[in-house]
């Protein structure tokens, strides 16, 4: 169940009283203000809102890429806001799968090597890593593109490689920052189908930032961020969507 009231006790991701303030010159810019959020495993949440509303900042805080000014983020029982930088890096490697708008693949590495990157931080053997990579690439339908470099792939394929990279280490949740923002409609649909499959078939938890209402509709719930506050929550009419408070 997804909630923005901060009243869930056992959700996978618990955000409580999250504030993020940046200082620009003499001015304090409050990007997020007292934000609460609960997300359970298998949920698919879309965050929408105008530019500067704090969507990406929220995603960065959830993914341990940035630290809040106030408040807490707890994932699977781990309170990440007080972790050291080193522990946070390790936590990120174990729990978060990132999917970026521009795919962020390493151009000089093949699809296989790109997908293998998160596994290099584990104790898996070379053969085990290879098996995991093949599985991830099979899930995204790119088993035949393993030895291709990013420049040899289409945008949609690149994003699917990025999704394979995000899921290969079986993270606790996926964070997607405008995953279809750089794709044409057909490729965007393919990517969204893939994300939906990951949620429905593999019970992945996905939190996604998007500007595209068509893309947001695929999520179980769309939350709107305006001036740093989650002001609106709209339940998808889909029967599969969970209860919304």
């Amino acid at each position: 169940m997804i909630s923005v009231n901060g009243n869930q006790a056992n959700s996978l991701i618990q955000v409580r009283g999250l504030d993020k303030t940046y200082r620009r010159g003499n001015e304090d810019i409050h990007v997020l203000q007292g934000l609460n959020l609960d997300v359970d495993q298998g949920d698919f949440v879309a965050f929408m809102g105008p530019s500067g509303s704090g969507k990406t900042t929220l995603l960065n805080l959830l993914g341990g890429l940035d630290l809040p000014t106030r408040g807490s983020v707890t994932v699977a029982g781990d309170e990440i806001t007080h972790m050291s930088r080193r522990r946070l890096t390790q936590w990120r490697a174990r729990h978060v799968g990132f999917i970026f708008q521009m795919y962020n693949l390493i151009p000089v590495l093949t699809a296989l090597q790109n997908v293998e990157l998160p596994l290099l931080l584990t104790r898996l053997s070379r053969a085990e890593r290879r098996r995991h990579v093949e599985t991830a690439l099979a899930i995204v339908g790119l088993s035949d593109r393993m030895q291709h470099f990013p420049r040899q792939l289409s945008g949609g394929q690149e994003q699917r490689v990025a999704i394979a990279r995000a899921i290969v280490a079986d993270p606790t949740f996926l964070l997607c920052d405008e995953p279809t923002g750089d794709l044409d409609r057909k490729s965007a649909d393919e990517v969204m189908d893939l994300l939906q499959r990951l949620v429905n078939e593999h019970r992945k938890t996905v939190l996604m930032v998007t500007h595209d209402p068509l893309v947001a509709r695929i999520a179980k719930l769309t939350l709107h961020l305006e001036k740093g506050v989650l002001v609106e929550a709209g339940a998808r009419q889909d029967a599969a969507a969970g209860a919304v408070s």
Partner: protein
Amino acid sequence: MLLKLLFGLGLALAAAAALLLLLLIVGGILAGLLAPFLGAVPVSYNFRSLRVRWASTLVAILGIAGTVGVFVAMLSLAHGFHATLVASGSPGNALVMRAGSTSEMMGGITLDSIRIVQDKPGVAHTPAGAPLVTQEVVGVIPIPLIRTGTDTNVQVRGVSANVLQIRKFVQLAQGRMFTPGLDEVVVGKNALQTYRGLALGDTLHFGGVRWKVVGIFNAGGSAFDSEIWCDARILSQVLQRPPDIFQSATVHLTSPAAFQRFKDAITSDPRLNLEVEREVDYYANQSSTMTRLITVLGGLVALIMAVGAVFGALNTMMAAISERGREIATLRALGFSSWNVVLSFLFESLLIAFIAGLLGCLAVLPLNGWTTSTMNMQSFSNVAFAFQITFGLLSLGVAFALVMGVLGGLLPAVRAARRPVALALREL
């Protein structure tokens, strides 16, 4: 008092800073070289990145390679000069000069003293019982260089007829040895190749005498190869020196181990006011001024070039990091630590430096054995010597390149690793 304290404090701080820098360099080199085993970022990432950015990589490589080339060339020059002079001495020979003389040019030893010396213990004798001692006179004469036609000082050495039994590494390559009492000379092979009019059969004019070149000798690349040898007594007359005074005597010992016994016998004899040195030590000392000069001057040139090369490497690595800001931020987001990023970029920088070091060494390798000449500050005469590039010098060149690689790569690597990930991702 306060000034002294401040000076001491400054000195201590400078020493600490130097130690820190040394640790940083050594640590950086070790960490960078071990990066494939210590870090998680695959090295194929670095190899391929260098290939993709081949132009800037090439510029950095050329900068470092040039510096390494100059560095190794200068060291090989100094090494060659040192080796040439050291080769002139034999450990089984002792050089006897007047006490207080710093070189043969300033020496003076009477025939009476030489007679006493040759009876001392440790002096080797021929089977016929003659002592193996050569009393010598040295002078410099102007002879034109083949290359430029300008006069240069050439050392002419008056020796005893038995000199080849004392300096056993000297071999006659052409012709014959001079005949004692005649105006004949034998010429070192480097002298033959460097100065005009010294071919076998040529006549040489100096000191009002016409000297006939009757032989060419090979002194194994030592400083003697740049000399002209003749009868010591005749040279002494020509140079208008007192007839019974020589400048040095070289004694062949029964064995190198006999040196101390021989030396003690000379220095404890109240009739003699002489100094004894192993011949090899004498020539090593002779080379020190010039070797130091070449090393310091060469080192300075290499240092100045190194500063430029370090900035070149720094610039390349900065550009690489700036171009790959997205990749670095992505790696950090995926869970690669700052340490992994530092190691990866250090490895890349060292890779550039290593290739450049090898290239620089290869570039100067053809200089090995190439003969040049310079003025020996002790004898004021021209000495021909060859660049000597040894494995040690090449290793030093590669190590120098690695130092430049660390200095050029460490700062950008740390900068890349410390950049906040969220900020780096946002600015892309």
